[in-house]
């Protein structure tokens, strides 16, 4: 391709009918005049013909239609959604999980304070969370590690599909009740 040739992406767009009217005229005129660009254009056309060969589709299985209609009919027969229906729990799952995380964070921080012996009103939040390397306190390090894990899991709140199926009780880490002790 020469310096005055059109971009390869535009030749592709021409071959795939993705150009706007004016752009199509310009690129088309260049491709007709330029052997090198015409060759690129033809290679996209050949690729398109090759892709035509992939035809895995066929008739659906004999029971497909019946199964689909039965599923839709069952859906149609369901009563209107109530307050506690899945659609409501879907909306409530995120705030509920956020509240749960907040409570767990507070419990962890309080535990860290108690283990630290610093009690109420001592130091900054950063000081409470950070594990002191020479303190040698395993529970304190574990609490800090659990809190860090919770922060790392915060993006889960953006996954509404996952939250819709979130079961608070079953998802609680084993032994988490000990945190409240």
């Amino acid at each position: 391709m020469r310096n005055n040739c059109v971009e390869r992406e535009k030749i592709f767009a021409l071959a795939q009918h993705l150009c706007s009217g004016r752009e199509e005229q310009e690129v088309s005129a260049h491709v007709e005049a330029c052997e090198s660009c015409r060759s690129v254009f033809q290679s996209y056309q050949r690729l398109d013909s090759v892709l035509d060969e992939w035809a895995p589709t066929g008739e659906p299985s004999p029971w497909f239609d019946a199964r689909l209609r039965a599923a839709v009919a069952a859906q149609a027969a369901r009563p209107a959604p109530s307050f506690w229906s899945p659609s409501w729990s879907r909306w409530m799952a995120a705030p509920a999980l956020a509240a749960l995380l907040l409570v767990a964070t507070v419990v962890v921080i309080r535990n860290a304070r108690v283990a630290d012996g610093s009690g109420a009103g001592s130091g900054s939040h950063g000081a409470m969370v950070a594990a002191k390397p020479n303190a040698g306190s395993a529970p304190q390090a574990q609490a800090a590690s659990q809190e860090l894990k919770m922060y790392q899991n915060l993006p889960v709140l953006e996954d509404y599909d996952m939250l819709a199926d979130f079961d608070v009780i079953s998802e609680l880490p084993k032994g988490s009740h000990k945190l409240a002790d």
Partner: protein
Amino acid sequence: MAIDSDLELMTRVSRGDTDSFALLLQRHRSSVLSYFVRMVRDRGLAEDLTQEVFLRVYQARERYQPDARFTTWLYRIATNIALNAIRDRKSEKLADAPEPRDGDEGGVLERTPDERPTAEQQMMESDRQRLIREAIDGLPERQKAAVILHKYQEVDYRQIAGVLKVSESAVKSLLFRAYESLRVRLEPLVQGGLV
């Protein structure tokens, strides 16, 4: 008698007309199924996912807003479901895969780039078709969806932008990058070899 548009039918469905829904289902079930067959390459799974799409359409009938073409909405639901199914299958395979041994090149992802063909596929496919399928399967998931929608479902690129929630120029760019990869991977076929 005038043929009802998809939007008219869906508007009726949102008012509780199940006959209109049956008509929509009849009109679009084959195209949605063939989209899934290409996306997930497992006919049984494709049929399950097609069913899920229409159930979701039905469940969302009262919230439906006719501000875009019905097929844009339909393919958006189908694409989300397909991409989730592909990701689920990848995570299952990663969980099942053995730990890489010392001296192995690359991780699990490099060693299992795609799934093995089913017995049905092996019987039906020619070598050329297998190469094409593997080349398309090897594309990043959004490029794959864009190529299948554009090439096989014949969805207009403006509509693909609506399906993938990206700009029209982003769709052109996705398709260009996908075709560039395919051109390299399918070089022997494009040059006329491997008959």
